[in-house]
């Protein structure tokens, strides 16, 4: 047996140090564990200050003893390498372990053990935990806002239909793959628009919806007879023209009459709200801000100085002001700029404002992608005799957009996180509804539950989006 120097752990006395160190370490963890779960203090006999620091001191000595390099034990080396490289790291690791152990019981008891789930009145919430009954009772309001209960199936049906239509891309066979871009850029947004504004809104305008469907189907059928050279322009123009023609020239009178007779009930946009409104606004802003942003990104890199300066002015203006003032502008200043008898719905104004605001950010992101492309790509495309639009559509943009997927995803995330700001114009999505519910005299004092609930929902949405964008980035990564 060699001599042991307790100030210097070495490999010769590996077992001694290992047993002693791990014993001290587990004692310290055990102490904190007992303290937080059972309110016991096994070092209570010590002076107050010392007993408070005791676990840290014991754990520190324990970790110091087990810090032996190349001990030959795989697990020990792993631990030393990961949480125990030096004294400073050991203290930090211990503190983090203690904080986690300490905070587990109160969090658990608030969330689950002392929380109340049953019942549907405030009386059941007498415990010290969370009152999830409150969330349960107000669930419909948080999801649909002031939308009438009897009509909420319309929102559900629209969202399910749109989700199904949106997932077409995953099931498309190779034959239809080439139409997917067209579908997602033109047809899908159009269908979504018709769904939201005529099915969810309802009323006489519901019949517009059927015109939209008729227009879309007619134009798709006709589209097969159009030479592929003009198909792009065809689908850009004809569905909208058909729709307008159907609406204003064919059945105008009957629409109103039919709507009054047996259409869906009209629900004004002021009553929309909750999480569904968050989705609606994010969806439309996402659709609108992308093409606008792309146009301004191209404009900013244009050879024409006037177009360039206008684009720079637009982008820098929107990037320089906070969204809340933009919404203020759309609420109080924008109506002044329109003819007196011309009225734009609050929700539409909101969507326009947020779209323009986010478009500036999208433009900057796309510009980054355009700048990152090597000059050779432009020159090669030009030398093949491609014009400006052909070059951008077939060569530059596909590559540039691949490069900027993370940036675009971040902008869209910011957009989703910005939607609660619409409280400025009086629209109440989920956070706004929470604030409303909080002030209800029958349900006072449950602000915490509401905010935690909304935070969980938003966190899941945003986290899923960021993970999805990461997957996209990996999928489209091309080595150049």
């Amino acid at each position: 047996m060699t001599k042991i120097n307790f100030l210097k752990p070495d490999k010769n006395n590996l077992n001694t140090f290992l047993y002693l160190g791990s014993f001290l370490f587990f004692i310290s963890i055990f102490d904190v564990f007992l303290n937080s779960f059972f309110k016991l203090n096994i070092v209570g006999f010590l002076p107050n200050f010392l007993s408070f620091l005791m676990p840290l001191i014991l754990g520190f000595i324990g970790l110091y003893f087990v810090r032996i390099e190349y001990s030959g034990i795989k697990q020990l080396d792993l631990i030393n390498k990961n949480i125990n490289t030096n004294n400073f790291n050991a203290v930090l690791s211990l503190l983090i372990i203690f904080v986690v152990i300490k905070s587990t019981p109160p969090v658990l008891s608030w969330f689950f053990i002392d929380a109340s789930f049953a019942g549907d009145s405030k009386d059941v919430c007498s415990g010290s935990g969370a009152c999830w009954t409150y969330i349960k009772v107000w669930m419909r309001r948080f999801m649909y806002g002031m939308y009438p209960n009897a009509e909420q199936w319309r929102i559900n049906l629209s969202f399910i239909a749109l989700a199904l239509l949106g997932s077409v891309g995953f099931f498309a066979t190779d034959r239809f793959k080439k139409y997917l871009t067209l579908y997602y850029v033109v047809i899908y947004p159009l269908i979504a628009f018709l769904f939201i504004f005529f099915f969810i809104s309802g009323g006489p305008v519901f019949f517009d919806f059927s015109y939209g469907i008729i227009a879309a189907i007619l134009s798709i059928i006709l589209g097969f007879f159009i030479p592929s050279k003009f198909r792009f322009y065809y689908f850009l123009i004809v569905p909208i023209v058909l729709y307008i023609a159907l609406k204003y020239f064919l059945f105008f009178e009957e629409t109103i009459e039919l709507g009054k007779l047996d259409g869906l009930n009209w629900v004004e946009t002021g009553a929309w709200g909750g999480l569904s409104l968050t989705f609606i606004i994010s969806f439309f802003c996402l659709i609108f801000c992308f093409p606008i942003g792309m146009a301004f990104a191209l404009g900013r890199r244009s050879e024409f100085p006037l177009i360039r300066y206008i684009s720079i002015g637009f982008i820098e203006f929107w990037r320089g002001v906070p969204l809340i003032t933009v919404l203020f502008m759309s609420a109080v200043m924008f109506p002044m700029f329109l003819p007196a008898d011309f009225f734009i719905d609050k929700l539409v104004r909101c969507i326009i404002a947020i779209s323009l605001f986010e478009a500036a950010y999208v433009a900057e992101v796309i510009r980054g992608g355009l700048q990152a492309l090597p000059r050779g790509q432009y020159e090669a495309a030009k030398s093949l005799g491609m014009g400006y639009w052909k070059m951008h559509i077939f060569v530059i943009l596909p590559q540039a957009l691949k490069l900027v997927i993370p940036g675009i995803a971040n902008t869209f995330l910011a957009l989703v996180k910005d939607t609660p700001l619409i409280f400025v114009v009086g629209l109440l999505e989920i956070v706004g509804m929470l604030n409303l519910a909080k002030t209800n005299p029958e349900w006072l004092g449950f602000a915490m539950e509401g905010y935690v609930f909304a935070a969980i929902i938003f966190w899941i949405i945003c986290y899923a989006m960021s993970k999805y964008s990461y997957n996209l980035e990996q999928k489209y990564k091309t080595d150049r």
Partner: protein
Amino acid sequence: MNFKLKDLGPQLITVIAVVLIFGFFTYNAQINMENRGIDFGYGFLSQESSFDVQFSLIEYDGSHSYFRAYLVGLLNTILVSVIGIIIATIIGVIVGVARLSPNYLINKFAAYYVEFFRNIPLLLQIFFWYFAALRALPLPQDAEAIFGVFFLTIKGLYVPAFIWENFNIFFYSIVAAVIAIIVIRFQAKKLQETQGKQIPVFLIAIGLILILPLLSFLIGGVSLSFEIPKLKQLAATSFVYDGGLSLPPELIALTLSLSLYTATFIAECVRAGIQGVGKGQKEAAASIGLTPNQVLKLVIMPQALRIIIPPTTNQYLNLTKNSSLAAAIAYPDLVLVFAGTALMQTGKAIEIVSITMFTYLSLSISISILMNWYNKKIAIQEK
């Protein structure tokens, strides 16, 4: 410049479209204002505002002008932004460095922090702190003192106030110290370039900034005392703290949420910056015999800062713009005081919204011009 007629077409169309849109808006605005009997003008700024503001850095009450109200709002915005930027930078740098730590626990802890706070809307966080977390604090009469002098209550944080005598002498001594440090730094650089000698500038700087103000206390007649807040009874159940400085809960909630939220983005910038410096740089610097401190100071930091500073400035700008969310919890910032209350009273929508937007716009454009200049200055000069 080779002039082409072909190039004129698209530009002309764009300009005409822009002019038409703006013309349409101005025309409508004129007609609308005539109909409603509003006249356009900024004369209202000198009128008496006749509304009160809860929290103000400069002297203000209802008898002051609207311009003064604008200043109050602007100063409150700047106050929140500056405090938020300082705290966010501290947290962000710590978390960013922690994300690169070899320690598994610290690394994960930092990663969870970033993922957690980044994915929750800022407005929700502000509401959470203001309406849920800070409402759980004790009433003034039940509050326990922290270190005997701070009181954290539901009505805000009360801290001791500084009472200075001859504050200007103290201030001058600090200015003198800063000037001396700049001169010494300049000389040290010159000395190193010409003769290769090194002076411990950092130690001298710390000494100067401590000793000069200390001297002002000893011989300059400066003195400092604290006014500790004391509990005062207003009515049977109503208590407040008297004396000292009081920070309203709106300010606390706002700075807390702004800095916790922005810190996640700053942390990512810091991490990217440090990771962006090649490993070879560190090894090369070590192999020519620099000490670890010198490696950090002379090789790693200058290169990492080049990557870190531009996006971080962007985050500072975002924080400043996000501070406008103050309006949601009634902290009297620029948007609430000016675009809210003042607009409501005067009805001058176009003027007030344009002034507010112009303020934010000039703030961000001036900072981005500064940033572009800085970027050009520190960019790698390739030969």
